[in-house]
């Protein structure tokens, strides 16, 4: 009887497909997850619990906006996996791009769709000052910190004092915000369980992974070659590509993407070559020092991580594609004529069947942890 029951259960369980050695190697490269924490040497507040607590307060602080009604959490909504569900974000005004999720943001090399910033703290300054987002000045941010007993106490606790220069106070605020955002890591997923089981040769563990997802994964690392750009444990190479999404914003306006991003990076007083980098060795500034500006960068946007992808619709830099199926269809039917003539020759239409499309979507859905894990931590009422 017991044996019969086991047989029935086995029949109901998903089957394990055979993966070649090359496929197994490619799949193994997408883990392990999660990565170990490594503090950001450019931010002396990175990994500091007091900074994380201050950053969390600031993240939800509505006084950090010109109208006193918005905060970072207006667009980076915890319940929406730190994005907002809008095609293009709405701060004080509608902006040009989709709100990127903050999940796993600390593992990125470049920040923002155009990579105009080379550290999480520098990126955190941008929306504070952007007149369409939170619309503040450095003086207003500094005045809030200096004028609020609790915030100023917490700021001093993290940084040892409040600088006289407004810009330096702004940078401290951004470094505390970054320390908080570094804690926003997605959890393990069904894919991670499968990947680890495959690496260990655990057939029973492998067989628990849905068969459609296994077929989709084969497309991802095989015919689709999606892992050429969506590589590694975070499923991104951290770089920039023209994926055939039109970069017109409104009539007569275009989004130059990475091309303008590199120029903004170089002009920023907050880049890693500047005086606000806490790392005297500039050990994380290699990319900033060597980044190359080319014509082909026009219309390129950062390759997003695919972790928690199912929780971050709509998709692409301008939210043009509503669903994961739309994204797969985009790459299935992409016209090479839409891509830069002098750009890279990577994308070609996948021409997936209906079943192939569903399988690839099924795989992508297994990269999500289900969300809903964040809960604001209780704070001590008074800072001493």
């Amino acid at each position, binding site marked *: 009887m017991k044996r019969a029951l086991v047989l029935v259960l086995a029949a109901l369980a998903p089957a394990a497909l055979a993966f070649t050695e090359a496929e197994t*190697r*490619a799949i193994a*490269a997408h883990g392990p997850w999660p990565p170990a924490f490594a503090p950001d040497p450019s931010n002396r507040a990175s990994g500091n619990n007091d900074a994380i607590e201050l950053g969390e307060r600031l993240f939800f602080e509505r006084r950090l906006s010109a109208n006193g009604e918005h905060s970072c959490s207006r667009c980076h909504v915890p319940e929406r996996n730190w994005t907002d569900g809008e095609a293009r974000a709405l701060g004080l005004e509608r902006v040009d791009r989709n709100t990127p999720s903050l999940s796993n943001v600390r593992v990125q090399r470049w920040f923002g769709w155009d990579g105009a910033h080379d550290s999480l703290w520098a990126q955190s300054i941008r929306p504070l000052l952007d007149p369409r987002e939170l619309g503040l000045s450095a003086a207003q941010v500094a005045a809030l910190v200096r004028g609020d007993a609790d915030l100023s106490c917490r700021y001093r606790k993290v940084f040892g004092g409040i600088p006289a220069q407004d810009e330096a106070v702004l940078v401290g605020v951004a470094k505390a915000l970054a320390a908080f955002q570094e804690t926003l890591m997605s959890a393990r997923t069904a894919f991670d369980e499968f990947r680890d089981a495959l690496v260990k040769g655990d057939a029973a563990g492998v067989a628990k992974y849905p068969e459609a997802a296994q077929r989709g994964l084969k497309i991802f690392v095989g015919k689709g070659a999606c*892992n*050429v*750009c969506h*590589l*590694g444990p975070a499923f991104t*190479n*951290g*770089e*920039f590509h023209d994926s055939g999404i039109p970069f017109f914003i409104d009539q007569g306006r275009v989004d130059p993407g990475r091309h303008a991003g590199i120029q903004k990076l170089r002009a920023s007083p907050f880049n890693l070559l500047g005086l606000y980098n806490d790392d005297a060795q500039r050990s994380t500034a*290699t*990319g900033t*020092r*060597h*980044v*190359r500006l080319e014509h*082909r960068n026009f219309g390129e946007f950062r390759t997003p991580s695919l972790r928690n992808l199912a929780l971050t619709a709509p998709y692409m830099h301008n939210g043009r594609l509503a669903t994961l199926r739309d994204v797969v269809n985009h790459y299935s039917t992409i016209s090479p004529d839409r891509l830069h003539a002098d*750009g*890279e*020759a*990577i994308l070609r239409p996948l021409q997936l069947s209906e079943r192939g499309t569903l399988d690839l979507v099924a795989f992508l859905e297994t990269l999500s942890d289900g969300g809903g894990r964040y809960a604001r931590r209780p704070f001590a009422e008074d800072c001493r």
Partner: protein
Amino acid sequence: MEERGGAVRAQALILALAVPAAQACELPGGPTQKLQSAAHTILYRAAPALSVGEHFALELAVCPAPSELRVDAWMPDHRHGMNYRPSIRALGGGRYRAEGLLFHMPGRWEFLFELRAPGGSERFAHAVRVE
């Protein structure tokens, strides 16, 4: 890292093969790749070892030392180069360090070395595969 012989892309390009050096040329510190023409020998190694998505440097010895060395890399199959322009530091005695390289995709890359010397220029190419 899988090594492959260099591919000829232009008349001026020297086919880079792992062949014995015609003259003493050394790069102490570990195994190297060797490229050679009648006029020059290049020894190089990556530090840290090549991996996709991570910055690395190249340590080089060029014999005899050229008046100028340029280093770059591209993916011939994808028709694109790196997103970073390496900087070259001459360390003296024909030794160099190229910094700021990054392979942002897996697959076949080709290192390009350009030597400028009073007798003319030479270009070497050497293909590597990273996964």
